[in-house]
Structure formats: C-alpha cells, structure tokens
C-alpha cells in the first residue's frame, strides 16, 4: 500500500507544479521559471523545518510566499517579452536560482550533527514527516488536500470574470487591452499566483524526498512543468491532472517493467497522444465531461 501512496505523493506535487504553469499558460505566458519558484519553495520550507524547527504548515506557507514574491519580481520584466524570448528569460531565471542553491552553504549544528544546505553536497535530512510520526496515508492526505484546494481555486477562477480576463489575455493580448484589461495586473498576478503554487509544490517535494540539491531543479523539470498542462489540455484544470497521472503514474511507474525500452516508449506515447489529441488529453472522449454532460442534457 505504501508504494501506491508514494506514487500518489509524487502525482500530488507534480500536479501542483503543472498547475502553476497552467495558470500562466491561461494568460499566454510560457514560463520555464516555475522550476525556479519550485526550488525556492523547497529550500525555504526545508530550511524553516530543519534549521528553525518550524511546523510544516508555517514552513510551507512562508516558502510559498517567498516563491510568489520572486515570481512577482519576475512578472514585471516578463511583461516586456513574450513567446520564445520569455522562455529564454525564464530559463535564465531558473538557472540563476539553481546555481544560487548550488553555492548555498548554510550549516548549523543541531543535536551534535551539522544540518542545512551544503552546496553541491545538497540539503539532506528534511525529514519533518517521518520524524514527527506522520504515517504515509497522512502525508498523502495532506498533499491531496492542498492539491484539491488549488484545483478548486483554479476551477472557480475559471468560472468567474477573472478567469475570462485571464483567457482573454491569453487568446489575444491586444484585443483584451483594447477592451480595457490591464495587462500588467493580469500577467503579474498570474505569475505571482503561479509562483505561490510552485512554492507549495516545492516545499511538499522537499519534505517527501527528504533531500534536495541543485540537480533536483534542472531544465528537465521545467520542461515537465509546462508539458503537463500542454499535454493535458488547457480547456480546464483537470487536463493537467490527467497529464501528470499519465506521465508519472503510467509512463514512469507503469512501464518500469519494460526496463531500457521504457524511455523509448515514453517519448513515443507522448508523440502519439499529441498527434491524435493536439488539444490535450482532456479532449479524449472518455475524459470530455462537458461534452458528455451536454449529450446527457439533450
């Protein structure tokens, strides 16, 4: 059972990471900075629980706020660029963050042993969950309560005026601006919100894996973060969840028995899905709730 709970944990924080990119994609911003915010959340909350002994709730909250603050700062220069230039700029930001943590050495002695980030040696023993007697099902429940809250918030957002404004900016910036939409507020808010979600995801990741180092936050993870909502589809918030389940649950774990062929099939399946369902997994008929509901209605 613990195995399946472990997979659910992984799916949980990857879903949050994907949702942070989803929020930005709604406004048409393809950001690779999510992994940078994820790293900030991971290190900040890890430092708070390991070095300062804070409660996990508080540590995750502070980590998320810290990440969102940096996202807010990134949001302004990001306004001036878009498309591939934004991708390059946000990759640069994530690399700055990664290399900062690569060089961060903040060690204190606690209980006769040194703890804290140790540069390239990484940040070990972020063991809040196990050390405080959390059972695996409790960890999973906690992560999924956060995931459900975030999904619910984004779902609600998509159904009120704010969501329409986000999508309007994503569809046609110029038209939205002509209609009186303040692009600065919309884009910076989306970046800040995305940073907040990525920060929480990073904190949960660090405490689930008990260890982070600069290698945990590479361009590959940034690619996954944007791949989840794109592969899943931007039609609604569940597309990202489907994509994470598909990649983390089916492709990575489900195909492990294939050994070396797993990676080949991994890529092939993604190509097939994108070719048959270019608007994302959410458009596969069995997942297409809205169409089924309409049919039911008639």
């Amino acid at each position, binding site marked *: *059972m*613990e*195995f399946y*709970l*472990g*997979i659910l944990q*992984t799916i949980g924080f990857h879903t949050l990471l994907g949702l942070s990119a989803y929020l930005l994609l709604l406004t048409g911003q393809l950001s690779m900075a999510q992994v940078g915010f994820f790293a900030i959340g991971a290190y900040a909350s890890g430092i708070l629980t390991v070095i300062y002994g804070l409660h996990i709730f508080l540590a995750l909250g502070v980590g998320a706020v810290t990440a969102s603050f940096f996202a807010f700062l990134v949001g302004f220069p990001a306004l001036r660029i878009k498309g591939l230039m934004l991708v390059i700029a946000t990759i640069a930001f994530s690399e700055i963050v990664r290399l900062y943590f*690569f060089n961060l*050495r903040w060690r204190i002695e606690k209980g006769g042993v040194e703890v804290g980030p140790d540069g*390239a*040696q*990484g940040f*070990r*023993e*972020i*063991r809040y*969950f*196990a*050390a*405080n*007697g*959390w*059972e*695996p099902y409790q960890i999973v429940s906690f992560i999924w309560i956060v995931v459900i809250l975030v999904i619910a918030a984004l779902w609600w957002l998509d159904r009120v005026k704010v969501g329409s404004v986000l999508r309007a900016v994503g569809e046609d910036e110029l038209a939205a601006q002509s209609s009186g939409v303040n692009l600065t507020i919309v884009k910076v808010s989306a970046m800040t919100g995305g940073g907040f979600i990525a920060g929480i995801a990073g904190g949960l990741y660090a405490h*689930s*894996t*008990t*260890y982070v*180092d*600069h*290698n*945990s936050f590479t361009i590959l993870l940034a690619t996954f973060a944007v791949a989840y909502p794109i592969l899943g589809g931007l039609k609604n918030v569940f597309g990202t969840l489907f994509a994470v389940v598909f990649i983390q649950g089916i492709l*990575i*774990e489900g195909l*492990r028995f294939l*050994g*070396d062929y*797993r*990676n080949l099939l991994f890529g092939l399946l993604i190509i097939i899905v994108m070719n048959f369902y270019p608007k994302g997994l959410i458009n596969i008929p069995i997942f297409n709730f809205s169409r089924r509901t309409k049919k039911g209605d008639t």
Partner: protein
Amino acid sequence: MFSKLKKLKLATLAFATVIAGGAVADTIKIAGWGAKSGPLRSFGVNSEAIIKAAIDRVNETGGVKLADGSMAKMSYDYYDSACNPEQAITIARKVASETDALIGIGPTCSGVAAALFGIFQKKVGDSSDTGLQMPLLTDTAVRNGLAQISQWTFRNTPNEPDMYDKLFAWLRKTHPEIKTIYGGTETDQGHSAGTYSIVIVQAAIRHGFEWVNGPIDEVTGKIGEGRANVLKSSSNWLMADTNFSVQARAFKKSGADLFIVSSHPFTTCGFLKELGRMKAMPKMMVGLTSSSSAETLKGCPKQAEGMIIPTSFAPITPAAKEVAALAAANGGAADLHSAAAWENVMIIKDVIEAVGITGDPSKVKEERAKIRDGLEALETTEGLIGKVTRVQDQGEALKPFVFVHAQNGNWEVLHDPRN
C-alpha cells in the same frame, strides 16, 4: 462415522500444524536498484550483471541455509531508478511494502542515496519515526558519510579519505621529484567535488605536496578545511560540459608536476583529450576513484595513460578475476562500484545464515530487522581483494585497496599497499 470424524480431525490438525508452524520458504528474495537509464546507465548495468552472477553462484552451491537447516534458493529483482531520487524512493517503497524482499542493494548515485536514506527510519526502534524499516546495503553511492543518515542503511563502498591519504604518502616517498600540484573537478557532482575539495587536495598537502600557485588559504591538510577555497583555486567544469579548453589551458599554464582530475569517466575523458590536444600532459596525474573503470579506458585509453587512482577493486586475486569474467559474461564490467555488489550478495547470504531466517512471508518485517541487526554486528567481511573491516556505528566499510594506473588500455596495479 467415528472413523470419518477422526480422519477429518487429523487432517484439520495436520493443516493447522503447517499453518501454525510457519511456512519455510524455498526462495529468499532480495531487491536491487540503480541507474539503468540516463548518463550513468553503465553503473546499473554493471551492478545488475554482478548481482545476477553472485546469485547464480549462491544457487549453484546449494543456496542459502535457513533457520531449520534446509536450503533455499536466492532470487532477485533489479529495478531502474534512473539516478532519480523520486524514482528510487518509489522503488524502495514498492520493495518494502509490495514484495517479500528481505533486503535491498543500491542505489547508484550519491544524490539519490542521500534522498533515499532519508525516508528510512533514522533510529531503530524509534516508534515516533515512521520511516521505512528495511535494510539496505549500498554497493555504489560513495559520497562521504551517507550511511549515517539511517540505522537501516549500510554501505560496502570504499573509504576515500584513507585511500588518498595512503596514495599521497606513497607518492611522496617514491616520487620525491614531484613537488607541485594543481587540479580541478566537476563541481555539480557532489561526489567528485566533495572528494576533491574535502579529501584529495588536503591529503596531498598533508604529505608535503605544494599547490602550484602558493598555499591555499585555510588548507592545512586536515580533511575538509578550506574546501571552498580549494574549489576557488582550481579550474573546474560541470558534468554536462563538452568543451574543456579553458580548464585545460589553466592546467597547462599552472605548470604543476602533478594534476588532480576529480571527475567521472565521461568528463574525465573529455578533459584529458583536450589536455592531450594542448600537449599539456604533466609528469603525473591522479584521478577520482570512480574513474578507475572500464568507461575511462573505453573513452580515452591513450590520454588516460599513466593516470594513478586508488581503487577497491582490481582483478588481482583468483576471486576478483573470476568475478570480472562473470561480469563480462553477463554483459557488464567489474569495477570498484559493481564488484561490491558481489560482496554484498555474499554478505547477505552469510548474515541470513548467521541470524536464522525462515523466509516465511508472514515474518518479513521481523526478519528484515534480524538481517539489519546481523549487518550491524558484522566486524569484518570477506572482500574480493581482502578482508573488509566494518565501521559498525556508522554502517560504513573500510575496504582494502590498491593503486592502479592506466597502461596500454588496462588498469594495472602500480602498488599494493596491502603488502
């Protein structure tokens, strides 16, 4: 009627006896995991090849003796953790909760081990700690001090501080003409950079070698001292780098007698090729333990010629020669990392026989704890090139080692400090 009832009672009694008496297994399962995909794929392939050979050997010689005196076969499953912490943790959870494997062997990468060991219970018997409770005996991940993260995790990996201390002491004695040193490492690899900045340079300074540009601040020869300054004074690269011209030029310009190249085979070869292209080969080169492998000699046999490395494996004993041959027959290669997998299987067999294991699936938890206790109690184990001393309170090993150098596309023993 009475007779039928009696028969039924007897049958029921016999069935109950079998159930209550505890089933004795005919197979003892172990699990292994390591990088079988990605840039470090060869490490996992080598480990699996040797685990397979070792298990085959155990089974050919009758298997493993159980608590009741019967013999059971050993079997293994090997998983690809891709040098990825999340995947390694998922596999550990799967093995611990979904299989009857009594112990694990792995993982490959030190960064993965640092994460993986953290999900195990830190102190045995601490009921407030909900970490995994299953013993793990690592063959490859070599970064300093990892096994102390949990009392369930053990390593049979080389002790680099001891190896480099002895190496530089020997070099000082046998090569008095070598005076100055210079070096570099792949800074994004914890093992390469850590061993270089914490262990290797300090060992060289301790034994009287001089840093070519004058002493490095705070570096007195004591392990770990001034490590940040060591990195600043060196010319470094990253594991994904493919261009080493700046670094090779810095090495050449240093004019040092001895170059220290602390990186894995992949960038070691790239760097050495650039060094060779610049005709900047020094009088002597010392490499990282992990580079004393077949990959280095496949990638750059000519440029690595003469490089000296301390290693805990070389085919210098009949047993080591045999394991090297078996690894090759299984599609792998024996080196200081993978050869430990053979030793680990044999250690596990010995511990199982010593602590009395039934292999009964209903007693997996209890028997895992017994094996852990058995591992902790070990004082010495039989290694392929000699006796291995266990550092019992740390879960670590002090393995015998030799100094090898690359000669004509092979790693030849240069000096055997065991004698």
